[in-house]
């Protein structure tokens, strides 16, 4: 059985929906929620109810009042938005934009592109985000070293993110706890190393690419950790690529970036997809906080098991580990930007406060 209050609610909601303008909506509001409105009247009626009924009806009354109030508010918002839009319909959006196109002769309708702009100078100077500046500087150096760019998706499958990189499910380094998953089972790449695999799938050796991009880890946001961060991945596969070549390349890069007196150190480490694996540390006067070793990259010689996985996926023997070898590296760009620009907190990057951004204009 429907309680009379529920009936009242249904009627009110219908009338709110039917109200054609603000005036009639206000009338509906007064009718139900006004001082003498029919829902308000139930407050008085409550007093006459039996003791055991009171809490039940009281709860229902609150729910009904909330539902109708919300409906009135959202309908009213709709009217306000409508009114706002109506007031703005008089604006002719086909008028020329400020410093947009100018009507040059040769105009023959929309099919021919125009190439001139009218003059109306901006008094402001804009700014490039510091992370972009860091990426651009790095990319420029790598390009001078003969690297082409490569790209891959942020949303990846487990094979590209783990298995192909010699990290099978039982591997202790395969940490699903730190990985964001989508409902369909795909994941957000935890490193840009996935692009190594994609680049090798797409083309046979030799290959020499860098891939700037975002990666994700299930970390709490604090001054030094962010669930989304930025890397530049590098991969070079050719005949006889060695540890010495890797060292030479990264030494060159960091000296270009941080100054010719930068010291670069390689320390043995472990990554499943490289063997040998080396962590890269730099020490430079260009960095605030004195001369100390700062970890800036992971690197190593591509593990033959990675080549074998790629061959399997390609269905050929293009990456024969006996014929080809390669090095790979991953640089943490947020960290590099932080140490180079002396930025104390990684959260500043995503906050985009103009007082921050314009310091780097």
């Amino acid at each position, binding site marked *: 059985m429907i309680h009379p209050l529920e009936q009242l609610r249904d009627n009110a909601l219908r009338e709110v929906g039917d109200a054609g303008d603000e005036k009639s909506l206000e009338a509906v509001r007064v009718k139900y929620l006004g001082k003498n409105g029919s829902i308000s009247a139930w407050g008085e009626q409550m007093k006459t109810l039996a003791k055991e009924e009171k809490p039940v009806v009281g709860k229902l009354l609150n729910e009904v009042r909330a539902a109708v109030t919300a409906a009135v508010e959202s309908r009213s918002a709709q009217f306000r938005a409508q009114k706002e839009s109506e007031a*703005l319909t008089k604006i002719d959006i086909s008028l020329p934009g400020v410093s947009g*196109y100018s*009507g040059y002769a040769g*105009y023959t309708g929309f099919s021919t592109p125009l190439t001139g702009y009218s003059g109306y100078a901006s*008094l402001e100077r804009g700014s490039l*985000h510091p992370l*972009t500046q860091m990426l651009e500087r790095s990319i420029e150096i790598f390009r001078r070293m003969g690297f082409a*760019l490569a790209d891959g998706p942020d*949303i990846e499958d487990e094979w590209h993110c783990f298995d192909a990189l010699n990290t099978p499910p039982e591997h202790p380094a395969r940490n699903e706890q730190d990985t964001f998953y989508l409902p369909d089972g795909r994941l957000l790449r935890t490193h840009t190393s996935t692009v190594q695999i994609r680049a090798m799938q797409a083309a046979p050796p030799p290959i020499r690419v860098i891939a700037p991009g975002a990666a994700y880890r299930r970390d709490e946001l604090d001054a030094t950790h962010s669930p989304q961060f930025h890397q530049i991945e590098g991969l070079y596969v050719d005949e006889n690529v060695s540890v010495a070549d890797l060292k030479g390349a990264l030494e060159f890069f960091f000296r270009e970036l941080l100054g010719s007196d930068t010291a670069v150190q390689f*320390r043995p480490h472990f990554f499943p997809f490289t063997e040998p694996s080396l962590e890269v540390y730099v020490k430079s006067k260009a960095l605030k906080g004195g001369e100390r070793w700062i970890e800036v990259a992971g690197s190593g010689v591509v593990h033959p098991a990675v080549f074998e996985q790629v061959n399997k996926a390609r269905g050929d023997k293009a990456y024969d580990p006996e014929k080809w070898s390669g090095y790979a590296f991953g640089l943490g760009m947020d960290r590099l930007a932080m140490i180079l620009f002396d930025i104390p907190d990684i959260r500043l990057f995503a906050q985009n406060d103009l007082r921050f951004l314009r310091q780097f204009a």
Partner: protein
Amino acid sequence: MKFSVNWLREFVDLPKAPEEIADLFNRAGVETKNIEARGAKIDKVIVSQITSSSRHPNADRLTVCEVYDGSETKRQIVCGATNYKVGDKVPLALPGAKLPNGTEIRKSKLRGIESEGMLCSPIELGLGEDASGLLILSPDAKIGASISDLVPVDTILDVEITPNRGDLLSHFGLSREIAALSGKKLKSMPPEAKIEIKKSGVTIAATRECPFFSGRKIGKLKVGPSPQWLRAKIESVGIRSINNIVDISNFVMLELGQPTHAFDADKLKGSINVRLAREGEKFLALDGKTYSLKPDNLVVADQERAVGIAGIMGGEETGVTDSTKNILLESAYFLPASVRSTARELSLPSDASYRFERGLDPEMVLRASQRATELIHELAGGTQAKEIGAAGKLPANPADVSLSYEKCDRIVGISIKPKTIDEILEGFGLTKSKGTSKSGTWKIPSYRRDLQRDVDLIEEVVRAYGADKIPGTDRSRVMPSSAADRSHDIESTLRERLVARGLSEVRTSKLISRNASAFSENAIGLRNPLTEEHVALRPRLLSGLIGVLEGNVRAGAERVALFELGRVFVPPDAREERRAGFLVWGKSVSDPHWRASDQRRLDFFDLKGVVESIFPEELSFQRIAHPNLSIAAEIYAKKRVIGIAGQLSTLALKIDAPGGVFVAELSLDLPIQGLGSRATFREFGKFPAITRDIAMVVPEDLVHEKIWEVIFHPMEPLLERVEFFDLFSGAEVGEGKKSLAYRLTYRAKNRTLTNEEVSVAHAKIRERLKRELRVTLRE
């Protein structure tokens, strides 16, 4: 993981300075995160015994203790801790003592009660991070003795062991590695287990997950507190002392890497069976929690129930207690993958599982059992069984690995003498079984299961030889530019143009909160978000830009003009697409300036100009309706929709932003492909131009686009360019009308124009406007 330098020195000689040790570790690939000095001399802190304890009359959280410090009179101390009982021995800081954290102890009154010193927690004495209660000392500590005598001077190194090196997770294992890298000899080896193995008392039902299991009975022992040396050792690396049996088990794990477990033998019902759990089998673990198990979880069971989750944690019911008399000491080899998946499934990582899942040395299983048995006999007086009950087979030694010296040189990039390579590998415990001048076949020791192929051996050579001794080489190769290069360059050009127009680039998070703001509707959610702020993938750039606007307006900005280039994830399948987003709001200049009298506010046409300026082809803006926009337009390039633009509805904003907020978002995937393409030269006239203005009054709803079309169709050959330069409405124009003004420029390619020629052309256009649009021309 924490290592005690004193303990390591029992096995291998180390440099004196902790920094030098850390440096040695670095070379080995073991990163030192922290170096901590322990047991620095602290004066006037002594061993005391609590003889009574009562509630503080004026404070609920405090107690008043009487302590015996070896002198004639007992001392009264006010104490805030609750973890002690009367009779416990605890450190007492006497008045005048200066603690490592700088606190000076004085006689004082606490809430009206005299306190003659302070009872100390571990953190107050610089002995670890435990601040939860008093440091309870061993019962055999001598009352009145200085605390410095109890805590030996030591250095604790907190180091990171990479997941491939399970063999380094013990003091012996790390010492063995240091010995190999520094060319030193190991001082001692763990005991050999010379004991008869009896195939009884244990059965293994899950032989894949548990290749080998052993249990040794030790009887008539006495459970009690551990001696001071044992407590100090395990506590120095952060393990709490429980009782002598549990402490010995932990000690052996820290020393040799092999976890063992002691069951109370009298509580076991029948012999041990190692099997997979039954679906939903309940298990009460030593941490006091009950776990519901699944059939892929390996358990150690007796004939009735599970008594341990294999390799992870023992059971509460069969744990060692003060009344335990007989134990069964487990030492086993479990499949790393099985331990790992169970520990993760149950969210129950332990010191034991950490080691098991990284792969242990099969040869250490019985040695560890022997070492623990000997210690138990020595410290708890047990008598061990002559034989050990076991089942299964320990995994065979790793397969031999061949290495060609030439390949080693090729991968390293320099030439290393075969003799040097051989010496390095022998140093790591490998033995050459076959060898020629070109290559060698190497026997791998049982604890180095990570050495599986030639590159693994090459890494050992690099580590021992020293990466710093390999000179970097210059090596280059040129690559043709790729599609990614081209789109990167296009975006760089866009950024330059937008910055030149006074816009600031932002980079907002691709992870957003659910319904962060308008334009985040239908965002694809993450299955396992960690925090509220990052639960979904942005479906558009605009939600982020609106957030940035709100933050900046709150911070007092007067002009916000932003753009972002980046990826979005388009519902419903999260297709990745590159977009450009724009937002302009506020004054046309950020700050007052003596040359900038213009206080005009940015509006839709500023936004439109920005959008137009970055695209090579002409765009058209067509009105649509949009729930979040009070002016809404679709942007067309040729006949394709490439984005939207408009004015934000005030309902879509959480802040008050007077004057309107203007936004646009466009796809970068296709329309910009032509950007940067070569423009071709068009001749500009050498002869003078003549300009004529047309001013007209038109109905309010007649749009510029229409007038534009009429002016240009058909094209007057002498017309060079047209500019729209004035718009107004009001009483003088009349209700429902507006006034527009255009400037037309005429020029001929090959001669000076005459006024007459221009008047003829101009008149044609004026006529067309009157005829086709019925405008009223103003003179």
